């Protein structure tokens, strides 16, 4: 492995510095405060692009924090899958931040917007670090930072629903991190390492001597990441938290934060656990069944909702379960689908939450039944909503088709027809609850009566960009799929 320069850590440092300056600047020059965070997000996105061109599709680079070599020091690894996730995190958060610049004035008190910028930058920094880190204890610390900041961008809106939802989220994530740290202790007990690569080579030996420790750790990891990523029976905190939050936070939480934990679980499965462990106990099978149940129940709950944002939140539970199904099928095609779904869902669900946010911004309407005829007064947000819905259902020309296509190919390849039916049924269910909104908005005869405010330019631009991203991910997917094929060969 060659050295990576200081670029990996630069991403994190840039964001942390901007998080420190933003609230200070906000006291005097309000305009500059947002610009600093915007610049840091742009800088980290460009750095991630540079890392992509450096590492390519097959090689990997390693960075030693503070020049302490592993296993003693913390190691950051830049390999193709991590760079992909890093690009999704920095790119999508930059896009959502531009939307937040327009929307926040309406959602929050004027005094706390500077703090919001700061929390946002720390959240992105912690998520980027989670994708890069190669050290279990470092992962624990980053997960706690991510949990606190993710809760804080909910509770910063000083309404009592937000406070309660944020508290529930915090308690559930505290349980998750507690389980995770216990699992790390079990692993450390038998291997004596915290670095992923060292553990992986050590665990295959330890598996014969101390199987119980390792099985317990695996179970604890599934509970920990399942709670944090809202895997089916552990999803109870998600609907309230994502629905009550300010719209940019909802887009961020549903679009990125839950996926980062799904990705971390993926990394633990394939970079920490040796192949022999995955073959000994049916870890993937457990994830697969939980994922399949999540896909169905998430869609069914979503159909019952009357609040627009709550419906989107339940739909997130079913969509995150697709990513877990990709991990559960344990097969290159299905993993391609699952990983591609991380990006597609980040684009799609963020677009949907943004258009919901634009509707609430300009009309104040949240109930699904009150949206009749709204398409005539707010064409752009509702058009973005339509494109997003199409991608959720998996219509051709949108990214949703590609990821579901590869997942379906994966189920056929492994001969699990039942799960193919689950994927198809969920597409149908998605159509049942998304399409009536679209049809009602554009084609119902009734006039929309509420007063309508004009949507700010930054929100319109990001909504338009969202539509374009969803369509691009559906049409130009070839490059990314080839990239995955090369990257995933290292796992099998």
């Amino acid at each position, binding site marked *: 492995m060659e050295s990576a320069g200081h670029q990996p850590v630069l991403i994190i440092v840039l964001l942390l510095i901007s998080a420190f300056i933003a609230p200070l600047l906000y006291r005097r020059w309000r305009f500059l405060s947002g610009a600093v965070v915007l610049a840091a997000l742009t800088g980290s996105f460009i750095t991630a692009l540079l890392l992509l061109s450096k590492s390519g599709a097959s090689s990997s680079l390693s960075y030693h924090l503070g020049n302490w070599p592993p296993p003693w020091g913390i190691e950051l690894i830049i390999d193709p899958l991590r760079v992909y996730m890093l690009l999704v995190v920095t790119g999508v958060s930059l896009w959502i931040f531009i939307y937040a610049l327009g929307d926040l004035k309406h959602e929050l008190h004027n005094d706390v917007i500077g703090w919001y910028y700061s929390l946002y930058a720390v959240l992105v920094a912690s998520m980027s670090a989670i994708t890069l880190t190669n050290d279990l*204890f470092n992962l*624990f*610390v980053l997960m*706690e930072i991510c*949990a*606190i900041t993710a*809760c*804080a961008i909910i*509770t910063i809106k*000083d309404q*009592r*629903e937000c*406070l*309660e939802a*944020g*508290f529930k989220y*915090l*308690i559930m994530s*505290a*349980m998750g991190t*507690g389980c995770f*740290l*216990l699992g790390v*202790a079990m692993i*450390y*007990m038998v291997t004596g390492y*915290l670095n992923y690569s060292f553990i992986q080579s050590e665990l295959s030996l330890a598996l014969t001597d101390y199987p119980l420790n390792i099985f317990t750790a695996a179970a604890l990891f599934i509970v920990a990441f399942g709670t944090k990523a809202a895997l089916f029976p552990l999803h109870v905190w998600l609907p309230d938290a994502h629905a009550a939050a300010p719209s940019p936070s909802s887009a961020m939480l549903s679009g990125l934060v839950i996926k980062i934990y799904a990705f971390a679980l993926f990394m633990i499965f394939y970079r920490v656990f040796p192949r022999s462990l995955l073959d000994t106990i049916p870890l993937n099978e457990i994830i697969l069944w939980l994922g399949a149940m999540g896909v169905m129940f998430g869609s069914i709950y979503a159909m019952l909702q009357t609040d627009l944002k709550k419906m989107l939140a339940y739909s997130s539970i079913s969509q995150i379960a697709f990513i877990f199904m990709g991990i559960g099928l344990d097969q290159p095609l299905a993993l391609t689908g699952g990983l591609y779904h991380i990006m597609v869902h980040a684009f799609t669900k963020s677009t949907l939450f943004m258009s919901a946010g634009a509707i609430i911004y300009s009309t104040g309407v949240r109930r699904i039944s009150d949206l009749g005829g709204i398409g005539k007064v707010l064409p752009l947000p509702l058009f973005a909503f339509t494109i997003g819905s199409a991608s959720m259902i998996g219509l051709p020309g949108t990214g949703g088709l590609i990821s579901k296509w590869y997942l379906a190919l994966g189920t056929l390849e492994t001969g699990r027809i039942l799960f193919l039916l689950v994927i198809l049924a969920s597409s149908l269910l998605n159509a049942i609850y998304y399409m009536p909104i679209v049809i009602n908005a554009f084609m119902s005869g009734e006039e929309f009566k509420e007063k309508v405010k004009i949507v700010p330019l930054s929100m319109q631009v990001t909504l338009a960009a969202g539509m374009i991203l969803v369509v691009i991910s559906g049409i130009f997917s070839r490059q990314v799929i080839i990239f995955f094929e090369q990257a995933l060969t290292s796992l099998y």
Partner: protein
Amino acid sequence: MEIISRLTENYFYLVAVILFVIGMHTMLTHSNMIKKVIAMNIMDSSVFLLFVAIGYRHGAQAPIIREGVDIVYANPLPGALIVTGIVVAVSVTAYALSIIVKIQRSYETVDCDEICELRSED
């Protein structure tokens, strides 16, 4: 019988796990928010205890190494890690308590069940 002798040998792990279960159970079942936060701390502390206990070696000294003196010393790494863990737990606790203060101001109760009733009336 073997399992009992193993448990008595490693009783500190057993204590940590019992504490963990007490903490987790209280956190998920009690409706009082302050109790939830206290339980969260019990749970975290139990993991810290277990982690530190991994570094224990029978009859070992503190890991201060001098030239020429050969000693058996305890593993210092878990201790170093747990100091970080404690800092993280403190900040989560502070944040949770600050949310509870705000919840108390707007709902005038810190009981989850009562808050649920208040919300269903809305």
